[in-house]
């Protein structure tokens, strides 16, 4: 069996003159915890909507476990669950009643998973209350519970921690981690880099509707051009000497320059010859945040 949980090719969605999603390819393998990272308005939600068959792409196609939601309708979502934007429920029904409703539309014994799902998201106590009285965090958790009723092999989550308080975010991430550990493939859309760094092993970084990087998170970080922080006895002259080696910027208590270890060695010799003492030369691994801005900067 080689059918991938998600295989999207050349997805395009335009709204008038604006191209919300611009030839996006996504390949998510079984067991991946895949980060779909980009600033707000990068087209993440639109992409997810196309994956779930809620909107029609103008070009390209999406397949979930080899099935196209546009061609096969609800059957393409077998084994798939998730939500786009905030999960929505009927405010005039209780949490449990809402889950009973979606479970009825799932079939496949989904109604027998309601109790377990409520326990998993810690909502069993409030299940009898109307959703209209739920906090934002409770609705997010109910959304996860609703997804779990489908016993998914693939979970699509759109900014699941947005609007949660710090404790809520921590709990939500722990829950996603647990679900991933159970073997569920997860596509997590997020604009929070720490979140993606914490949870995901593969990422697609998007900006203005285009995929700017796709691959293993680790690879992105190790192959990226490193930076070094440098403090010397004469920063002004050091900056001049460092300029041919790479890009140099002034930071609060010294200099920062881009380069690898060889550049660092060559620069230290040059500094010594010029009679400039090195107080500190510190390699800095780029954070995902820095990489993200490197990738998206040329984009704005």
């Amino acid at each position, binding site marked *: 069996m080689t059918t991938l949980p998600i295989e999207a090719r050349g997805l395009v969605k335009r709204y008038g003159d604006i191209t919300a999603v611009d030839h996006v390819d996504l390949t998510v393998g079984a067991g991946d915890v895949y980060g779909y990272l980009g600033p707000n308005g990068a087209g993440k939600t639109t992409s997810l*909507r196309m994956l*779930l*068959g*809620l*909107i*029609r792409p103008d070009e390209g196609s999406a397949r979930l476990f080899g099935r196209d939601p546009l061609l096969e*309708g*609800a*059957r393409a*979502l*077998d*084994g798939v*669950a*998730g*939500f*786009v*934007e*905030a*999960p*929505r*429920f*009927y*405010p*005039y*029904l209780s949490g449990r*009643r809402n889950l009973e*409703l*979606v479970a*009825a*539309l*799932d*079939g*496949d*014994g989904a109604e027998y998973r309601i109790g377990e799902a409520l326990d998993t998201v810690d909502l069993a106590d409030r299940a009898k209350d109307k959703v209209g009285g739920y906090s934002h965090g409770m609705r997010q958790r109910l959304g996860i519970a*609703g997804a779990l009723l*489908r*016993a*998914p*092999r693939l979970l699509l989550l759109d900014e699941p921690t947005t609007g949660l308080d710090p404790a809520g975010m921590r709990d939500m991430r722990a829950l996603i981690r647990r679900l991933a*550990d*159970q*073997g*569920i493939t997860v596509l997590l859309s997020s604009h929070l880099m720490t979140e993606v760094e914490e949870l995901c092993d593969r990422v697609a970084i998007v900006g203005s509707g285009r995929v700017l990087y796709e691959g293993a998170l680790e690879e992105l970080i190790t192959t990226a051009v490193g930076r070094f922080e440098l403090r010397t006895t004469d920063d002004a002259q050091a900056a001049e000497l460092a300029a041919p080696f790479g890009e140099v910027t002034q930071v609060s208590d010294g200099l920062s320059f881009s380069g690898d270890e060889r550049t660092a060695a060559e620069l230290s010799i040059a500094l010594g010859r010029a009679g400039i003492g090195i107080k500190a030369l510190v390699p800095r691994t780029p954070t995902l945040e820095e990489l993200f801005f490197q990738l998206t900067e040329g984009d704005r």
Partner: protein
Amino acid sequence: MSSVAVPRTATASARARRPGVVTVYRWELRKLIAQKRTFIGLGSALAVPLIFVIAMVADNDGGGPDDLPFWGLVTETGFAVPLVCLAFGAFWLLPLITSLVAGDIVATEDHNGTLKTILTRSVDRWQVFAGKALAALTYTAALLFTYVGVALLAGGLIWGFDPLTSLSGTQITAGRALLLTGLGTLAYLLPMAAIASIGVMLSTLTRNSAAAVVGTLMVSILLQIVDAISALDVLDPYLLPTQFNAWQGILREPTDWDPILRSAWVSALYAAPALGWALTRFVRRDVTGG
């Protein structure tokens, strides 16, 4: 599935019993029962005949729209009350309370974003639409029978269940009058279903509950205006207001089936394209609300 940790997935058992239109329909009814709007509609269907009866009791000097069928019989037998109520309900009351739910049933889910919730489960879009349309029609039938039932009961309790004089001038026994009232109500349901279908269509197309409710009422009133323009009398047999009078054929002796047959196909001529258009739009549209 070899892995122990992976949850049970949708396999053969899912295909064996996938949910369908009936499941959607059942839950649409449950949603209606949980919403205030439904009871505002049903409450009006219950209150208006009562108010009418009370008004008639308070002011029994007569005087009123003599052109309404059975108007002159109201204080003689309770059987005349639901028939008069059917006659005046067609102007705006029944179209309004029908559209209150029919115009809301798709648009409100669009607006609240719950459409995406139910469209990412295991039912296809056409099944969701069919369940919703059926639920709207069921509500329409429920409010019509509530309306007629309350009128009959209140009228009968005050003026008795005495024999009724048919539109042909013959006497109808109480038992037969009850049967004919039921049949007349069913005939009345035909144009009501057409109104409900227009409501569902506008609900789907406008994605706005208020616009759909008002729009449906406007369509109904516009058709009445066209109906009233004598220069356009040639159109009358094909307008819904004419079909709202078809039930009177049941209250003739012998029964006049022609207007009822006409009502059936003319109402279908309104309902089928409305539902068809709405369905094709619903199946293909982008769901972005909420």
